[in-house]
């Protein structure tokens, strides 16, 4: 197994799946010594990431998250053998629809890339380089290119179709998936959200969504019935309730939700929302956060600043980003991918369920903000809502170089935030999935300086007494 993990030609999916098989077989309650022994056995990059996930305050949630993903990967692997078709979906597409079909299983591109970065030796770099080797430009998004690089450049797991749901909200995501579909000659189902939130725009989205369902039914040779959709959406509703509970917990001071739980929440949303393992994972992280609230446990001496990250985070160093913020007292109130705003779906009949699914589809992160008539205002409104509800002291834009649409709206976001809330925005530059662009030490230094020189003085009122003569 270790040999397979290290082979350059082995596809990312296979390597990740093998690692998670091992994780899934671990005992429930491991001692610190046992964990230290396990980490010694793993290659350094994997050990570093898993080490971050096994720190005591997040361990229970991490194990629940990893078990959920182990099931997801195992189901994807066994899907073809069971006569199912695996469908590659983007993170901004609610996977419940695909889960509702008997003959299909969803694989989420960005979740797979993130797992590769988090869990594998060498992270995702070799696969990213495979994508670039084909001539794809270096400004494509690593969240897609790592995973599709593996698909294009190695003998990896291949999906039987692709759903492209970023059309209208992210060019590079949409173009990359279109390219893969053509390269492998597999069907591409396009779900466009019009940049139009009027009744006409919403109706258009519904038509597009119904066309997608019809296309999938034909492709899978299976009708999507009420009986299939309802149980999935009932579990969706349970996940949504738990999300709402977690959102309330985020409001507490000091912040009781470990930073990594933000990642686990949307990891679940993008891959296993509406499934039993997804519900179990969400229950676990809510339960852990509640217990932390009750006990008053906090990983630093005090809460120094409450920080809302406005878009993707940095995933190439979980310890250096998520845990570091916890331990510095920089409360991680969630990031842009947590801005899901899920709604319970009315499961009365097929029509109400499709209406509800459309609402969910339109509200997925990025689709909701960047697919709004104005990217900058759609995004600003959501960030400002979250800043106010969660009493954030500052906002941090972890600028991922490939997110051209957010980059083009960041200046307006900064102005709107300041104008409407007085909350300052720190703009960082890097690559969320590749450590070779900006090292975590530089990111930490910039966050430290920002909090020390801008956020803390502002919160303590020192900046307010400065007058211009």
């Amino acid at each position: 197994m270790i040999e397979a993990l290290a082979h350059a030609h082995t596809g990312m999916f296979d390597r990740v799946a093998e690692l998670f098989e091992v994780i899934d077989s671990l005992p429930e309650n491991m001692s610190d010594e046992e964990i230290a022994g396990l980490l010694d056995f793993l290659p350094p990059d994997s050990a570093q990431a898993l080490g971050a996930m096994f720190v005591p305050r997040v361990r229970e949630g991490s194990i629940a998250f990893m078990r959920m993903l182990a099931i997801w990967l195992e189901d994807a692997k066994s899907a073809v053998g069971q006569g199912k078709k695996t469908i590659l979906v983007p993170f901004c597409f609610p996977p419940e629809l695909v889960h509702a079909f008997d003959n299909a299983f969803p694989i989420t591109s960005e979740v797979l890339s993130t797992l590769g970065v988090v869990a594998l030796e060498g992270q995702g770099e070799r696969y990213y380089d495979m994508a670039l080797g084909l001539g794809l430009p270096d400004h494509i998004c690593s969240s897609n290119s790592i995973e599709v690089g593996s698909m294009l450049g190695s003998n990896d797991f291949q999906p039987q179709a692709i759903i492209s749901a970023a059309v209208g909200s992210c060019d590079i995501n949409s173009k990359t998936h279109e390219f893969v579909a053509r390269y492998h000659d597999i069907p591409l189902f396009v779900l466009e959200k019009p940049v139009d939130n009027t009744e006409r725009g919403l109706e258009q989205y519904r038509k597009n969504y119904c066309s997608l369902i019809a296309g999938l039914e034909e492709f899978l040779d299976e009708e999507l019935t009420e009986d299939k959709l309802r149980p999935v959406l009932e579990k969706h509703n349970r996940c949504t309730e738990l999300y709402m509970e977690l959102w309330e917990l985020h409001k507490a001071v000091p912040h009781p939700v470990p930073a990594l739980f933000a990642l686990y929440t949307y990891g679940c949303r993008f891959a296993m929302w509406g499934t039993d393992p997804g519900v179990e994972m969400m229950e676990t992280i809510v339960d852990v956060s509640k217990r932390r609230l009750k006990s008053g446990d906090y990983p630093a001496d005090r809460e120094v600043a409450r920080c809302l990250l406005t878009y993707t985070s940095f995933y190439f160093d979980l310890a250096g980003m998520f845990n570091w913020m916890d331990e510095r007292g920089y409360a991680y109130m969630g990031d842009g991918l947590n801005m899901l705003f899920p709604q319970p779906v009315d499961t009365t009949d097929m029509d109400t369920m499709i209406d509800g699914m459309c609402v969910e589809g339109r509200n997925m992160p990025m689709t909701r903000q960047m697919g709004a008539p104005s990217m900058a205002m759609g995004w600003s409104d959501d960030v400002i809502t979250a800043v106010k509800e969660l009493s954030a002291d500052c906002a941090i834009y972890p600028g991922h170089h490939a997110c051209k649409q957010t980059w083009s709206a960041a200046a307006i976001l900064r102005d709107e935030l300041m104008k409407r809330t007085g909350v300052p925005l720190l703009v960082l530059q890097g690559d969320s999935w590749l450590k070779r662009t900006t090292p975590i030490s530089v990111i930490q230094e910039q966050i430290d300086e920002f909090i020390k020189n801008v956020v803390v003085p502002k919160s303590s009122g020192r900046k307010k007494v400065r007058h211009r003569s």
Partner: protein
Amino acid sequence: MMMDEVTRLSEMVENDFVREWKDEGKKVVGYACVPTPVEIIDAAGLLPYRIRALGNPKTDIADAHLARFNCSFCRSCLQLGLDGTYDFLDGIIETNGCDHLRGMFENWEYTKPSPFFHYVKVPHQTTKDAMDYFEEEIRLFRSAIEEGFGVEITDSGLREAIERQEAIRGRLRTIYEMRRGDRPAFSGAEALSLFLLASAVPPEKFIELVDAAIEERKDGGVTGYRARLMLAGAASDELELIREIEDVGGLIVTDALCYGARAFWSPMDTAGDPVKAMAQIYLGDLLCPRMYDDYPRRRDFVLDAVEKANVDGVMVMHNKFCDVHGVDNVQLRLDLEKRDIPVLQLEKEYGSSADIGRIRTRVQAFLERIGGK
């Protein structure tokens, strides 16, 4: 010489005819993207003006709004919007061409609001639902122009505008046909000058200029080139860049550019329902990598042009950070290579004189590779 005059006029943002138009108290409406139904603007008695940057390399003001990760063509246009160059515009029409272009419009409007602003929302597919939606967008656009400028757009006025704009497109098609022979009537730079003028002067003025240019060059002209090239890819209105490529012997004889053939290749039905006719050419026939599940049409357009213009090699270019062309060009390169058509894939910075030397070297190497003497 008429082409000298065309070239002079095409190198100005606010050209003599725009100034005359404004002096007469008439209004100008700017747009940037091909799927903007300019006939609506024209029918309202307004001058439709396609926003351009003409290779402007300065982006210092724009960089405070867009990031360095945004395409330099959009930053360059935004710069001209914010530094006052485009103050002659009385209105701006946004389209969701790409993420960068949306950002350009949003920052422009946020920072320096235009007296009139309207957003034409263009679907990314050509399904029946998408076509219906776009037809309604055209109707809404018409109403917005009527309301915003206090004018009535009559059906007969719209038909006349369609005929005027179709006459422009027809002349541009003629220009491109005249470049197909051994002695092309126009160089690539001259063709781009004519194209730029077509969307920057009143229609009747353009027809006068272009007819004179056609007459002047009816016996052909350009000789002594090393190879016949086709240019495909991202938005580019850089006359200087084309001149540099042609200077080393690569004559551009056709293109698949949005500041080029993709904007006028499809003839409009001037007899049928005006809204349907506009929806068809501006969405149904739109050749742009922003469209999804539509790549074979874009590829076939390039292959057809290669054959008709007797092309020796294709240059596919994109501006740094342009996602839609950056990815589409890879697919196009693979497909051209599969057919043994020589292809040069180039990434460049828009308007960067620092990039010119590198591009010249790449083109020279390409010409040697394809056997240009």
